[in-house]
């Protein structure tokens, strides 16, 4: 499987490079963790699309891990803005988790999260897993937007990504049960 070139998969069924939906989660049950396990190793890239997660009690962050790995193997930088106002740029290195929400801009019962997370190179062993995502929190009248670039496990003995773990910082989270919300995982060739 080639990994040094990243063509953008198409959603067209006629394209040879396309995204294929391989899993979905639409339950509105309150849960603190959502795991996508046993991910097929047959694609070049993964795309996780999250539409509408809220947190049920107080503010907190939404985290993401690969393979339930809690080592200091996560690094990323990004910037966050509202629709009209730049807020900040930041960098994290040697962390134990990706944060899908910026500190200070957590999710709660009225501020819900959506995002698109691309994971390149996920099936290749002994290669860094590059991650790019765009996140959004909506809380009228503000729309917070975050753009992130990062990687997981830059070491020489990096495993393939076989599971994606979403974790909320405390309490429970759930999918908003309307507008076809949910979490959708795609494989891209």
């Amino acid at each position, binding site marked *: 499987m080639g990994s040094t070139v990243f063509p953008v998969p198409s959603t067209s069924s006629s394209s040879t490079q396309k995204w294929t939906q391989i899993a979905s989660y639409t339950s509105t049950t*309150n*849960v*603190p963790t959502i795991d996508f396990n046993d991910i097929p190793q047959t694609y070049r890239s993964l795309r996780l699309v999250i539409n509408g997660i809220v947190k049920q009690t107080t503010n907190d962050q939404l985290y993401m891990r690969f393979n339930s790995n809690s080592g200091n193997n996560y690094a990323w930088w990004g910037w966050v803005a509202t629709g009209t106002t730049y807020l900040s740029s930041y960098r994290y290195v040697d962390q134990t988790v990706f944060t899908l929400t910026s500190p200070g801009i957590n999710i709660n019962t009225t501020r819900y999260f959506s995002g698109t997370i691309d994971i390149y190179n996920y099936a290749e062993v002994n290669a860094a897993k590059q991650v790019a995502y765009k996140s959004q929190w909506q809380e009228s009248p503000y729309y917070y937007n975050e753009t992130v670039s990062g990687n997981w496990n830059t070491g020489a003995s990096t495993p393939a990504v076989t599971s994606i773990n979403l974790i909320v910082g405390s309490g429970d989270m759930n999918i908003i049960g309307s507008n076809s919300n949910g979490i959708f995982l795609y494989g891209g060739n």
Partner: protein
Amino acid sequence: MPNPMIAVINVTDNTEVIREMTDEEYASLLANQASIAASLTKEQLE
């Protein structure tokens, strides 16, 4: 009080299970949440 629920999606088998966490899973979750909050370190770029 029951433990929280956990959602597990097996992508290969296309199955989804939402079940109560075991005591071990819940203890691990609480430990993870505490350690994440304590260890996150942001470097502000500007």
